[in-house]
């Protein structure tokens, strides 16, 4: 732990503490886990970006059906390849942490569910979302008829201004009515 602490630097640590919802221990743990993902020669370079494939080997993300979306949402890479720097990684953990607010959680949940990044959940997004939830195998997939009915019902319930898509405010409105969301939208290292 001592070496990682010195690598991270005290100023950076307190700055990260100020900017994220993580505690010191959590940041140090995150740093440790992140450096484990780096290869030998990468470790010496500053500001490394770990490619998505290697991030997804983390057991916390490995079997999550939204893993690729999560990486893409939190990645700041200009190639849109889902690679994460340490700061992006902290962002991810902060949004999924215990003390993050409902608002920030629902914001990132919205972006994760917004598969095409167009700022609103439309039928295509909802279809992909439901497929992720039910799994990709044939026996758990919903039939097209069921899917159509489900999406129509979702839109009917949550699309308040009736424009055919669910935007962020409408999404947050739905989320705010489900008290379990905060406890289930969590990833702990």
């Amino acid at each position: 732990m001592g070496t990682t602490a010195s690598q991270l630097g005290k100023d950076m640590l307190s700055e990260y503490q100020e900017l994220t919802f993580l505690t010191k221990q959590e940041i140090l743990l995150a740093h440790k886990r992140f450096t484990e993902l780096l290869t030998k020669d990468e470790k010496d370079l500053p500001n490394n970006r770990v490619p998505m494939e290697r991030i997804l080997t983390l057991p916390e993300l490995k079997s999550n059906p939204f893993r690729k979306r999560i990486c893409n949402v939190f990645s700041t890479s200009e190639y849109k390849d889902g690679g994460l720097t340490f700061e992006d990684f902290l962002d991810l953990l902060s949004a999924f942490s215990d003390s993050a607010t409902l608002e920030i959680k629902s914001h990132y949940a919205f972006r994760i569910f917004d598969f095409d990044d167009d700022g609103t959940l439309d039928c295509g997004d909802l279809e992909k979302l439901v497929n992720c939830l039910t799994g990709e195998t044939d026996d758990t997939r919903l039939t097209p008829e069921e899917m159509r009915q489900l999406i129509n019902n979702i839109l009917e319930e949550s699309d308040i201004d009736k424009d055919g898509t669910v935007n962020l405010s409408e999404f947050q409105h739905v989320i705010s009515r489900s008290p379990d969301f905060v406890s289930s939208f969590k990833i702990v290292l």
Partner: protein
Amino acid sequence: MARNVAFDLNNPLMEAGLESPIDEEGVHDSFSQLIAEQSQNGGASDSDTFELQELQRQLDEEERDNVAFLSDPGREFQGRRQRDAEWEDADTQADPLIGERWSSATLKILSSMPSRTIGRNRGAIISQYYNRTMQLRRRRQSRPAIRDFSRSARPSIRGYGIETDSADAEVSKRDRLVNNLQNLSVSDRIRMLRAMPLNVSEKSELRSLALQKEKRTLSRRIPCCSQLKYYIINGARQGWYSWLSFLHSLHLWQVPLKRVSGRFGSGVLSYFLFLKTLLFFNVFLFLVTGAFMVLPQALHPPESFVGRPYFTGLELLTGAGYFSDTVMYYGYYCNYTLRKSCRDDGGVHNVSLSNGTMPDCVSKHLSYNMPLAYFFTIGVSSFLTCIILVYSMSKSFGQSFRIDKSHSILAIKTFCSWDFKVIKKSSVKLMSENICTQFKELLAEVSHKQVKNTRCQRLWRLMVHGLAWAICVASTTACVLAIFYCSSHMHQNLQLFLSSRVPVTNPLLNEASLLALPVLVSLINLLLPGLFNLAAWMEDYESPSVRTYVSIGRNLMLKVSVLGVLCYHWLGRVAADPMTIGLKCWETFVGQELYRFLLMDFIFTILDTLFGEFLWRLFSEKVLKRRRKPVFDIARNVLELIYGQTLAWLGVLFTPVLPAVQILKLLLLFYIKMSSVMMNCQAPRKPYRVSQMTTVFITLLCFPSFLGASVCVTYTMWSITPSSSCGPFRELKTMFQAGKRWVEELEKDNPNLSVLARAHSYLVENPFFLFVGAGIFLIVIYFHSQVVDGQRKIIGLLQEQIENEGDDKKFLITRLQTIHEQKRTPTRRLASQNSNC
């Protein structure tokens, strides 16, 4: 740039020749304003500028308006739109917004509308948070210090001369945000920065900018004392962070809890979290009683009169014998003031009687009034526990119950049902299977709502429910009667034993016979829930939540009535005339009984875990050849925890170290249950509403459990005569008199304090104030319910308003589309106008 767009949109309007020019002018003015604002808000980043230029070109050149020309998101968008449209066609619902195919220009504008950009656009987020910081600043404006600040740095771009005059809207927005941040107080700024959904690097940039400016202003115009204040605040913040980290490092059982949640999700986790909460309650109680009662008494042991019986091992179960006359029980505590010696001869502690043997040093040295300490420790600790319970209950209520009761089950299921904590592969698979079946069930429910039962069927159902309830009530009554007669039989046995004066043949056997009642009660507690489950299986409830509530209700009925009978036995029978069964100290006896009950409960829970979970799994795997493992019954296990906690709260008065026993029990239980769950159980198939159930359980912990225990304890203190030969309250009529006597003594010593005595007699002894307190409480509840009612109405109104706004939006977009169509195909103008009018 923004002007350009507005102008271009206005142009076709002029040539469109609409029927009422003034109205339409208005509409389009506002719309172009919207677009102008939009391009200022978020459209200034490079890609968006490009998009808008593209839009411009598309508006101008019709021929090139094809899919290939669009940038990627737009193309996807259109493709999806078409698919949506097909879907909607299939579904006869004709929504004006979905049913039509939009031109690319309309799509562009749709996709850059504020409600859609906020989810993805950085500029939009920044501007949203700019508004928020503005609001926060306005709210805090009343404080003079900040007003000083904000006047010097008003949110204008020209306020500070370092930026070159850039037209970039996002940059200026950002500057203003930084400016606002800088003017917030430190804690507000941190909170604001933390809550921004931007990535860390951007946030740290914002922070460093804000800090830079602050430093400059600080060094320029803040006197040194403020600088000192600044450093102090900084230091305090650092201290707070390290305290938080320390608290976090205390987090108990993080790794095992993570393992459980990774495999079973939030439902089973909630059981362990509840266990942890109970553990903290007991640690608190133990610290208080240990520090103020057990420790002082242990340091000043009273002279022991009789030789203690030697240790046999059975004491661990019965709590009697060797343990009887120790610090564990009420009877051991003395009724005088403990004093430190008056002569300072090397810290030798003398114990002196309170009846004024050494009056010269009473006032100078530490004295510790044991009865008073006993009385107040119990009182204060239960009061604090009550406050913590009510607070956590209200918090939990606030989180889990919403005012707005509209139904959106499917949407909630879709958006909130994934448990991100689950990381085990097989559990993930199981969860998606469960979600799939839940979707199918819900859809089936929605599509043929309410299949009407025939009258005969309904009658049958009613009969089945009636039968099930009758079975449950009858079995509960039978059990309660059994306990009642068993306890009275044992009571009579003791009386007989005393009157016949048979010499003690086997003291061990005698002691072991005390265990009969606890074993009976624990056995009932173990077996009857099984019967209730059978009854529920017979009833076959459709909704899982109704099923859970019914099962909770039945178990609660059983436990409350059992505890009621036991309390009657202890407080009504044993305490009424302890001499008939030869008890010198009935409080100690009751304390021992509670210890036995607590221990038996624990042993039976372990047996239940062993037989109900481990052996049942082996049986079903090896003999029945089923692949399914038993499911962890969260509700029943939590109710058992609550039952144990009630016993612990009841027993604190009689057995001050009972919280320590409970702590040990909970610790062991945690590891046993944890390993049992990991080994034997599978994730529950039914959806489990975690926060709602947690609320229910905390309410149960507060209402029947804690309240019942404290009513019993208060009753004991208030109106039962304590035994006359042991304990801190001997020679008093009730325990409550200890406080009264102390107040009288105070008054005697110091006449100035007579107000206190009078206040005491008015407040505590007069029931009037109790009624007033209850009245105020009821009024507060009434006001709260009224406020909630009002909020519900406001929500209804706002929803209506939003729907109207949605209509407006639809109207504007159709209008925009028409205009675009007219511009693009001048030849079809007439036709489209006809269709529109």
